[in-house]
């Protein structure tokens, strides 16, 4: 079914592809080790290292384009070699990793640059850049690894960086808690991922991409299903998908560039990468694909619905991210040609969502770190660059042609309608509904922030445009948001063919025609946006208003946090306390009780030593009688 996967060994220039990881890593190490001595120039080292990586990435990219088989493999050293297990510290540079490298280093460079301005007044800026570089290194390793253990290595690495950056302002309890929550929920997914790796080794004797993908055909469908579900669990954790979505909005406690880079553009899309990378596994089982599609569809709706109810600019964007990644999951779940669609949506999302977050950061920067959209309004006058770039990104995300979102989201919706039978309707309509809601809440966000009456007070907030070092990346990202979709819609799909398979020849046979879907999606988008504008152009209430059950539920994140608390946290705490009690009183108590029993027995027995010589004689006589009796009993066979 699947042609054999083979990677050529790297030579020449491409054998230095490890530099991509090494440069940011070295930079991070230098920044951490030098400490305060690097405070003055550290951030420039941080920006420089990622920029160099970007340039290198471009060079490798062009080098790769010139190769026939479009992939190179590079083994740096033996990582783990025990018995039949052989894990290399090996890298794979192929079309899929190449686009991710460019996304990470490209968008990453812009956000790094932006952060120089954004973190200007923060005393921990050097540390921030060290963590940022660390993240870049881990993320690059994640996408460059040539086996699942390397992927896992990077996977956990980005988790660490994410934790460090969410909890960057660790003296805020909310930030520290959010970081911990992110790490823990990710670990749940990671555990699944890890077990999937064990399963691969147990079944196939290898964890290398090539061996695993080539061996999928020989696995029973049950094993494939389990393996896929475990990988999916990992992916949902990292990408904030149902059921592990709750951590992502809380992650907004981190500095805004972090939200832009890690929790919008790159890290959270690692789940999509994982599934796309493992496409031979996911394509091998229909049930598995259906589960992925369901997760995607459900999450895109959850994210969109909750996004409507939030009043915090970053939280709205965060839920929007959840929702958009839902689209990507939908895409990779649909399989076939939709893999590539999901990837280009991911890339486009990287541009416009990063733009949105950085724009939000720029707003906050000008508004004394206010994040409540109910306290914005009419800002377009004060920060025009931000307004313009944010607006373009807004149009891109809701999918107004010819901006990028249109080229990437609409095909996914169309692909959903191409499924078999009633599921086509179910998932197609869900995707379409999601598009409408997206348009609504994004418009709400945009209108409340930049238009309508001003609802802020001058004595606290003095809105002003951000410095050029921050606006320049905004502009560049806006350009990307506008152009990327159109540029990528065919070129990148073709480019990814060696990895994701050639599906260009496949006949589309949706339940309704593609043209109709296009039209429909534009219509619902416009309707949603129009509704949003109509409702919010006059501003909104400053306080949270009583609302119906649906809105309340959305405000409460559809009770996911409450569920987690009631089902895991509370019982967990109770269990912990109970066990502490058990350990102290039960197990330790048993031991101490035994000791006490011996002591008690001893003090009771020593009372028998009365000090009266006659009672001693008594015990001797008794003993003598017993001994004699025992001897005679044995002799006469009484005891036998």
């Amino acid at each position: 079914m699947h042609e054999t996967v083979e990677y050529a060994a790297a030579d020449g220039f491409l054998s230095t592809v490890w530099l991509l990881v090494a440069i940011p890593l070295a930079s991070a190490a230098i920044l951490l080790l030098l400490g305060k001595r690097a405070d003055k120039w550290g951030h420039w080292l941080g920006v420089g290292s990622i920029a160099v990586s970007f340039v290198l990435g471009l060079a490798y990219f062009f080098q790769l384009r010139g190769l026939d088989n479009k992939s190179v493999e590079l083994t740096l050293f033996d990582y783990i070699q025990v018995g039949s297990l052989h894990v290399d510290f090996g890298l794979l540079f192929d079309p899929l990793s190449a686009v991710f490298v460019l996304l990470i280093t490209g968008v990453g460079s812009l956000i790094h640059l932006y952060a120089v301005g954004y973190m200007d007044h923060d005393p921990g800026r050097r540390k921030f850049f060290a963590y940022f570089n660390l993240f870049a290194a881990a993320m690059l390793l994640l996408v460059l690894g040539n086996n699942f253990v390397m992927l896992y290595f990077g996977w956990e690495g980005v988790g660490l960086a994410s934790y460090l950056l969410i909890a960057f302002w660790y003296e805020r309890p909310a930030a520290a808690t959010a970081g911990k929550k992110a790490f823990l929920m990710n670990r749940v997914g990671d555990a699944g991922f890890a077990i999937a790796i064990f399963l691969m080794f147990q079944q196939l004797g290898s964890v290398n991409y090539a061996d695993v993908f080539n061996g999928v055909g020989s696995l029973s469908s049950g094993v494939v299903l389990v393996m896929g579900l475990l990988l999916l669990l990992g992916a949902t954790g990292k990408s904030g998908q149902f059921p592990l979505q709750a951590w992502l909005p809380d992650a907004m406690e981190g500095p805004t560039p972090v939200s832009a880079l890690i929790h919008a553009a790159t890290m959270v899309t690692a789940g999509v990468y994982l599934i796309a990378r493992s496409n031979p596994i996911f394509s091998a089982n229909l049930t598995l694909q259906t589960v992925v599609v369901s997760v995607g569809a459900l999450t895109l709706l959850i994210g969109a619905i909750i996004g409507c109810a939030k009043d915090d600019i970053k939280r709205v964007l965060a839920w929007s991210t959840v929702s958009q990644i839902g689209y990507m999951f939908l895409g990779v779940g649909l399989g076939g040609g939709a893999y590539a669609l999901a990837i280009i949506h991911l890339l486009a999302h990287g541009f416009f969502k990063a733009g949105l977050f950085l724009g939000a950061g720029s707003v906050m920067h000008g508004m004394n770190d206010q994040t409540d959209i109910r306290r914005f309004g009419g800002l377009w006058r004060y920060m025009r660059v931000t307004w313009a770039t944010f607006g373009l990104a807004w149009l891109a995300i809701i999918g107004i042609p010819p901006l990028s979102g249109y080229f990437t989201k609409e095909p996914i919706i169309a692909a959903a309608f191409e499924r078999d039978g009633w599921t086509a309707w179910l998932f197609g309509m869900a995707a379409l509904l999601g598009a409408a809601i997206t348009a609504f809440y994004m418009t709400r966000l945009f209108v409340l922030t930049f238009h309508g009456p001003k609802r802020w007070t001058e004595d606290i907030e003095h809105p002003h445009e951000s410095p050029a070092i921050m606006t320049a990346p905004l502009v560049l990202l806006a350009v990307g948001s506008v152009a990327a979709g159109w540029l990528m819609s065919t070129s990148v799909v073709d480019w990814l063919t060696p990895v994701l398979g050639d599906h260009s020849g496949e006949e589309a046979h949706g339940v309704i025609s593609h043209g109709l879907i296009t039209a429909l999606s534009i219509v619902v988008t416009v309707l949603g946006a129009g509704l949003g504008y109509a409702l919010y152009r006059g501003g909104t209430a400053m306080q949270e208003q009583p609302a119906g059950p649906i809105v309340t539920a959305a405000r409460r994140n559809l009770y996911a946090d409450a569920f987690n608390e009631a089902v895991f946290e509370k019982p967990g705490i109770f269990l912990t306390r109970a066990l502490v009690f058990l350990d102290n009183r039960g197990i330790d108590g048993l031991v101490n009780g035994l000791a006490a029993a011996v002591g008690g027995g001893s003090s009771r027995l020593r009372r028998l030593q009365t000090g009266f010589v006659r009672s001693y004689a008594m015990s001797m006589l008794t003993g003598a009688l017993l001994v004699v009796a025992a001897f005679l009993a044995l002799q006469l066979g009484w005891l036998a």
Partner: protein
Amino acid sequence: MNATNPEWYLILAAVLFTIGAVGVLIRRNAIVLFMCIELMLNAANLALVTFSRINGNLDGQIMAFFVMVVAAAEVVVGLAIIMSIFRTRRSASVDEANLLKY
């Protein structure tokens, strides 16, 4: 079963030994206690002599003499100890010597 049946002497020896052994338990006076022990020794002597007769060799009778000598030596030591305690306590009751216990 005539009176010269040596088994009767053995039974007598056993009875004397038992009286001595029980006497140690029920009497308080150290001297009497000691006498009870002497009684036990003499019961053993009686048994030795009887067995000597039963077995038809003289060893048992010789042993009885040894035992008597030893018993005499024991009396010397025992009375000395009992005396020294009596001088302090003005009592020969063994139950009063009860400082060391538990």
